[in-house]
C-alpha cells in the first residue's frame, strides 16, 4: 500500500483545488467518481446542477456543481484547462442568496458563499423557476449539519488508514519523555472524571507537595477550575512552564491563601527560582477590566514571591476583526496602491509580533532558570499560544514531525482550546462572537519561525497548510469539540479518523529536506516587523497572480542533488568492485553511461 501511495504526486497545481486527496486503498479501484475526483469512503452525492461560477480572477465560468455530504465540487465545461473547485463543506461559514428573481444584469441571481479559508465563492443560476432553491437548501443543510440535526462528516467517513493517529499522543508517555514524574512533580488522575475541571485533560502534572485537597481548593479560585499545572520542564535547570486561568479576584480584590501557597510551591520546586514569573497574556487594562466580571490578576501584595508581567496580547474579538481586515485587502484582489500601509492597518502582523515576543519572554525566563506561570482569562486561547510557542523554541522535540503533532494534541486539543466555538464546526451562526482565528494565528507564528529557521523544523509548510485546511474540513475528528470531556462523550476516537492517520500515511509530503538535527540551542525568532512577513502562500493562495510553487526551487535542487549523490555513490561502489575483481588498466575510457554524461543537465555553476 505504501508503494501505491508514493506513486501519487500530491497535486495541488490545479489552482482552485486543495483536497485532491487520493485514497490509495483497495476500494479505490471501484470508487465512485465525482466528475473526475474519487469520492471518499462514506461520501455520498446529494445534488448536482448546471451553474455559472463567477471566478473573481477570470470572470464567469460555465460548469456543473456537485454537492456531496462532504464537499462542493465544481468543474467547468468547455474551458481548457478546466476550472475546478473542490471545497469541503466544513470550510463554508455563510451561504447567502444573491439577487432576486427580478434582478437585472447578467449573473446577478445566485449564491454567495463565504469561506473560513480566506475566500468567497459566487455562483449564478438561471433566473427562471426558482432554480436556486433546492441547491441553496441542500447547501445550507449540509454545510451546517449541526444546526440541522445532521452529523459532521467525520462521523460518516469510512476512511481507513494503516496508521492510527489517535495513538500519536499519549500524555503519560510525553511526560515521561520530559523526565516526569520526578521528586518535585507528580502525575495526578484526580481529574479522571472531569470533576476537578471539565475543560482540562484527565492526566495532569502538579507539584509533588500539593495534595489533592489543595488542588481542589485552588480550583475554586481559578476561573473554570483551570488550576496551574505543568506544561513543560527544562531538563537541566528544572524551570517549569505552568499554565492556568485567571484568579477570581473580583472587584473586591479577594485573596485565596491556598492559591497563594500553591504558586509558592510551584516556585519552590526549582531551587534557582527566587521569584516566580507570572505572565498575564492580556494588556494591563483588560486584566483590570476583568475584575468587573469576577476575574483579575495576581496582586503584588498577595503573591509576594512572584512578579507579574503583562504581555499585551489582545482578545479574540480584536484578532477576528484583524483577520477580517486582512481578508479585505488580499481577497479577491491584492490592495495595490497602498499595500504596506493597508497591511499595517490590519494589525495582523503586529499581533503576531506580540504573541511571538510574549513567547520569547517566556522561553527566555525558562532558559535562565526561572519558572513561569502563564495565563490569560480562561487559559485556552492566548495561554495555549504562548506555552506552545515557548515550548517550540525551547524543545527541539516539538520541532520534529511527530513532536509537533504531540504539541498540538497536548497544548491545544487536550487542554481545551475551544475549537468548536472558535471555528464553528457545522454551525450556521456565522456571526457568533465566540469565533476567532486564534489557532490560525498560532500556526502563522510557527510559520514565521520556520521562515527564520529554515533548517530547524522537520516538517514543512505543506503540513501547516494541511493542518489549517483540516481545521475546517470536518473530515477528521482531531479538531472537533471544545475539550476532552466533550470528545469522550461523543466517542470521537471511536467514531472518527484522526488527522494524523492521514498525515502520517503520507509522511514524505510533509518533510522538510533541509532539517538538521540540533539539540542544544534555544531558537529565538526575531519578533521585529523587519522580519515578519505576510504568509502569502496561505492568505493569498487563491490568487493566480501569486505564483505558487509546489516545491521551492531550493527544495527541488536539493532533492536533485541528493538523488545525484546516491547515483554517484552507487556508481563508485560498482567501479571499486570491478576494480578489485579485474585490474584492467583502461578504466579511464568512459563507458557510454558515465555519470558525467548522464547528468549534464545538472552541471554545476563552477
Amino acid at each position, binding site marked *: 500500500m505504501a508503494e501505491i501511495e508514493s506513486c501519487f504526486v500530491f497535486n495541488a497545481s490545479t489552482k482552485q483545488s486543495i483536497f485532491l486527496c487520493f485514497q490509495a486503498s483497495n476500494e479505490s479501484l471501484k470508487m465512485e467518481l465525482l466528475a473526475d475526483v474519487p469520492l471518499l469512503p462514506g461520501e455520498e452525492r446529494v445534488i448536482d446542477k448546471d451553474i455559472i461560477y463567477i471566478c473573481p480572477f477570470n470572470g464567469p465560468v460555465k460548469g456543473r456543481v456537485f454537492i456531496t455530504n462532504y464537499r462542493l465540487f465544481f468543474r467547468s465545461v468547455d474551458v481548457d484547462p478546466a476550472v475546478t473547485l473542490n471545497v469541503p463543506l466544513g470550510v463554508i461559514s455563510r451561504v447567502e442568496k444573491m439577487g432576486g428573481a427580478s434582478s437585472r444584469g447578467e449573473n446577478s441571481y445566485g449564491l454567495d458563499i463565504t469561506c473560513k479559508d480566506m475566500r468567497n465563492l459566487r455562483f449564478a443560476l438561471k433566473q427562471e423557476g426558482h432554480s436556486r432553491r433546492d441547491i441553496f437548501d441542500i447547501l445550507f443543510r449540509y454545510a451546517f449539519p449541526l444546526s440541522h440535526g445532521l452529523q459532521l462528516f467525520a462521523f460518516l467517513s469510512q476512511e481507513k488508514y494503516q496508521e492510527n493517529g489517535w495513538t500519536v499522543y499519549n500524555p503519560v508517555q510525553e511526560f515521561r519523555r520530559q523526565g516526569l514524574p520526578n521528586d518535585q512533580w507528580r502525575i495526578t488522575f484526580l481529574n479522571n472524571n472531569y470533576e476537578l475541571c471539565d475543560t482540562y485533560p484527565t492526566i495532569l502534572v502538579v507539584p509533588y507537595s500539593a495534595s489533592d485537597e489543595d488542588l481542589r481548593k485552588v480550583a475554586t479560585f481559578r476561573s473554570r477550575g483551570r488550576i496551574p499545572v505543568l506544561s513543560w520542564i527544562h531538563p537541566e535547570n528544572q524551570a517549569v512552564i505552568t499554565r492556568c486561568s485567571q484568579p477570581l479576584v473580583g472587584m473586591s480584590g479577594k485573596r485565596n491563601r491556598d492559591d497563594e501557597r500553591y504558586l509558592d510551591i510551584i516556585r519552590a520546586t526549582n531551587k534557582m527560582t527566587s521569584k516566580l514569573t507570572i505572565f498575564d497574556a492580556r494588556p494591563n487594562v483588560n486584566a483590570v477590566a476583568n475584575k468587573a466580571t469576577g476575574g483579575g490578576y495576581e496582586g503584588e501584595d498577595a503573591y509576594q514571591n512572584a512578579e507579574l508581567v503583562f504581555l499585551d496580547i489582545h482578545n479574540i474579538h480584536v484578532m477576528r476583526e484583524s483577520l477580517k481586515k486582512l481578508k479585505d485587502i488580499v481577497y479577491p484582489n491584492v490592495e495595490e496602491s497602498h499595500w504596506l500601509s493597508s497591511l499595517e492597518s490590519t494589525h495582523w502582523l503586529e499581533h503576531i509580533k506580540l504573541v511571538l515576543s510574549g513567547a520569547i519572554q517566556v522561553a527566555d525566563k525558562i532558559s535562565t532558570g526561572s519558572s513561569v506561570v502563564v495565563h490569560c482569562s480562561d487559559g485556552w486561547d492566548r495561554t495555549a499560544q504562548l506555552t506552545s510557542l515557548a515550548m517550540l523554541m525551547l524543545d527541539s522535540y516539538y520541532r520534529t514531525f511527530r513532536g509537533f503533532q504531540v504539541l498540538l494534541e497536548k497544548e491545544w486539543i487536550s487542554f481545551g482550546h475551544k475549537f468548536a466555538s472558535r471555528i464553528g464546526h457545522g454551525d450556521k451562526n456565522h456571526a457568533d462572537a465566540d469565533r476567532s482565528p486564534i489557532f490560525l494565528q498560532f500556526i502563522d507564528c510557527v510559520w514565521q519561525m520556520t521562515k527564520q529557521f529554515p533548517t530547524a523544523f522537520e516538517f514543512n509548510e505543506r503540513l501547516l497548510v494541511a493542518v489549517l485546511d483540516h481545521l475546517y474540513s470536518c473530515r477528521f475528528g482531531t479538531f472537533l469539540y471544545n475539550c476532552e470531556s466533550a470528545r469522550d462523550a461523543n466517542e470521537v476516537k471511536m467514531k472518527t479518523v484522526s488527522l494524523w492517520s492521514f498525515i502520517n500515511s503520507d509522511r514524505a509530503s510533509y518533510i522538510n529536506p533541509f532539517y538538521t538535527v540540533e539539540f542544544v540551542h534555544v531558537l529565538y525568532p526575531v519578533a521585529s516587523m523587519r522580519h515578519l512577513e505576510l504568509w502569502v502562500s496561505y492568505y*493569498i493562495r487563491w490568487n493566480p497572480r501569486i505564483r505558487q510553487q509546489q516545491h521551492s526551487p531550493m527544495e527541488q535542487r536539493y532533492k536533485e542533488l541528493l538523488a545525484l*549523490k546516491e547515483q554517484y555513490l552507487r556508481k563508485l561502489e560498482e567501479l571499486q568492485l570491478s576494480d578489485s575483481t579485474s585490474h584492467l588498466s583502461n578504466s579511464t575510457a568512459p563507458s557510454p553511461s558515465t555519470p558525467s554524461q548522464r547528468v549534464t543537465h545538472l552541471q554545476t555553476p*563552477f
Partner: protein
Amino acid sequence: MLSGGGGGSGGGGGGAGGGGGAGGGSGGGRSPKPSFVSYVTPEEINLTEKEISRKEKQPDLLQGEVIFCSASPIRKCTQDDFSQRGIFGSLFCTNFRISFISDETQLEEEEGQVFKNKLYGENDIPLTCVDNIYRGFDEKKKLITSGSVRNKYPSKIIIHCKDLRVFQFSLAFAKEEDAKKIFQGIVHHCLEPKSLKCIFAFSYSEKMTFSSENQTKLKTVMFDSMVDWAQEMKRTKGNCKLVSANADFNISTKLPQFFIVPLAVSEEDFTQFQGKGIPIWCWSHHSGCALFKTASLPLMQEDGCSQSYRTYMERMLNAVAQNHLYSVKTEELPETLPTIQDIQQSYNKFKQFFLVDNTTEFWMSDVKWFSSLENSGWLDIIRQCLTKAVEVVECLENENTNVLIMEEEGSDLCCVISSLVQVMLDPHFRTLEGFQSLVQKEWVAGGHHFLDRCNYLHKDKELQSPVFLLFLECVWQLLQQYAPAFQFSETYLTVLSDSVDVSVFSTFLFNSPHHRATTIQPVSLLAQKGPLNLPTVWDWSVQFNSAAQDFFTNPLYVEKSRQDKVPRKTFRPKHQRHQSLPSTAFKSSPKKSFFKDETDSLKKMLRVKRISRWLNPTDLTQSTTREFYEAWQRKPLDYHGLLLPCVDGPALRVWAQRYLRWLPEVQIFGGGAMTLEKKLVDLLAEVRELRGKLDWHCSVDFSHRGAAALAGSSVRLSSAFPFFVSRTWSFKPAIPSCLQKNLITGTFADKEDEDSECLGVI
C-alpha cells in the same frame, strides 16, 4: 587637559559600568573574551602606557596609503547604549580610510572570518564610504556639515556609512590636541570638496600593477574596443552599424569611443547636434527588432534650432523604424519615472530605517515600519522601474517593435531600464560574466555619471543619486523571485553595491569614457609609465580571496544543458502576420509626447495608419502589460527564458541582507536564509567531489572545496552571515521594548473577553 564635557561623559561611562559589568558577568561564561568595560575614570588611564602599546598597533597600510593623523585612546562604543560598553583603541585617518585599531588582541579574527575584505576590515571605513558624520551629545546627535567645523570638537562622533554601518567614537579620552586633529582630519577628508586625483585609487594604483589575468579568466567584456561591440552584435544577431568615428572623441565627449547605430543613420548625422539624438543600439531581440537609447535635447523648446532639430529627429526615428518592420515605439523615461532627485530623496528616507543609533530607537521605529517604508517611496520607485522595463519587454517580445528610450542625458534612467530589459530577456546577462559585461556596456561605456552620482568629491549634492543601486535593487527583486535563473547570488549583489563606495575601482570613478581617458592620460605622462592601470571592480581578487568569492555564485543556478539549447527561433507564426503587413505599427508613446507631431508626419511618410488601439492608451498600456504578465505567468516557468517580475505589493520586498546585516536587534542566531544555502552548498561540494572521484577515480584536484569548507561547522550561522559573524554568542533574545499599546481598535476595545460568560461563574 580633559575638558568638562569629556569628564562628564567619562563619569557617565563609569556610572553605567556597574550595569555593564553585571551584564558581562552573566554572559561572561559564554563570550569567548570579555569586552573592555569602562569602570575607570579617564584620569586613571595610564596614558603613557597606552601610547607605547599604540606604537605597535597600526593599520596594515595598503600600497600608497599614508596616515594623515591619529588619536588614542579612543573608545568605540557598541550600539547598545544601555551598557555603555566599548572597546578602547586608536583611531587613524589615512588617505583611504578611517581605521579603528583595538587595543585588545584580536584572537577571534581568524576564526569564522571567512568573508574578509582585503582592502578594509570591519573597523575600517573607506573615506568615500562615509555618508554622514554627526556630533553626539547627551541622547541627541547633530549633523556636521563641511565648513561648520571651527576649533571645537565633540566628545563623541557618530559616523553613518553608505554600506549602512554605524560607528560611534568617543574622543573624550584622547589628548585634546590629538582629538581635535583627528576630528578635523576626518571631517576634512570626508566632507570637504576635493579633486579627483586625491581619490585613493590613484595613489594605490601607482604602486600596484594589476594583472588582467583575473579579468580574462572571468571573461567580462569591457566594451572598450571595436571587437567587443562587434561580438555583442553578432551574439544577438543584430543588424546595425558599428561606428568608430568617435575613437578620439571627435564627435562627442559624451558618447563612448565605439557604439552601434541603426544602418540608416549616416555619417553626417553624428556631427549635427554633438551626438545628441543619435539612437544608440543596446540589444537586439531574436525577432530582429532592437532596443535603442538616446540622449535627447530638452523638449519643446521654441527656439531657432527647433525646426532643424525636429527634422533631424524625424530622420533618426525613421532610421530606428527601418531597423525592423518599420515600427518604433518611443518612450520618454522622465515623463513617467522619478527624477534622479526623487530617487535620492526617497533613498535618503529609506536608508534612515537602517542607520539606527540605539536599541530604543530601533524598537520605536519598528512599530510603524510598514507605513514608514511606504512613505519613503523606495519600493514604489523600484516597482515603477520594473514595470517600465516590463512595458519595454512587451514591445520587443510581443509586438516585435523597435523601442527607443530617451532621456536628457541618456545615462541614468536609460541605463536602468535598458539593462533591466536585457536581464529579463536575455539569460546571458543573468550569468556572472554576462551581468558584469552588461554593467560595462550600459553603465560604464554608456557614460553613467558615476563620479557625480556618488559624489566622491563632495561637490554638487544635487547631482548625487543612487541610480546604480536602484538598478541593483531591481535585479535583487528579480533574483529573489526567480533565484534559479541567476548565476550570481544575493551576496554578490550586496558586495557589488558596497564596492561602489570603496574608491579603488576605475569602474565607478568617472563620469564617462571620455572623462576616464582624459583623466588617466596626464597622470601616466608624469609617471612616465604606460597608462595608469586602475583595477576594475570585476577583478574580485583585489577584495576577496577565492574562497570568499565562492559566496558570489548561486548554488541554485543550473546551466542550460546542451540538449536544451535549441537554436534561436527565427520566426513565429504571429511574426509572419507582421511580415505580411509590414506597415502596421508606428506607435508612439501614449503620453503627451514630444514625438507626437513627428510621428504624424512620419506616418504620412511611411504611409502607416495609426492603430485604433492607441486611441485611449493610458489605461490600455497598463492593462495590456498586466495581460502580458498574466499570459506569461500561465506558461510553465523557464529559468533560461524570459523573466517577468511580479510587482504586486507582497512580491516586492526589502533587500534584507544589504539593509539588515549590521543591526544586532534583527540577527537571527542560528537561522536565516544562509542556513539553507549552506546545506545546499555542502551537498553540492559533496556531489562535486564524488563526480571528481568518478571522472577519474583519483588524480583529481580536490583543492576546490567550495564554500562548504569555509563556514566550518563550528560557526553558528546567523541571518547576517557572511557579513557579520557573531562573536559574543549571545543567547539573549531581542525582546521588543516598545510595543504599541493602542492596538485595540474598533468596538471590541472594552469588550473583554472570550469569558463573557464568565459573569455567571462566581
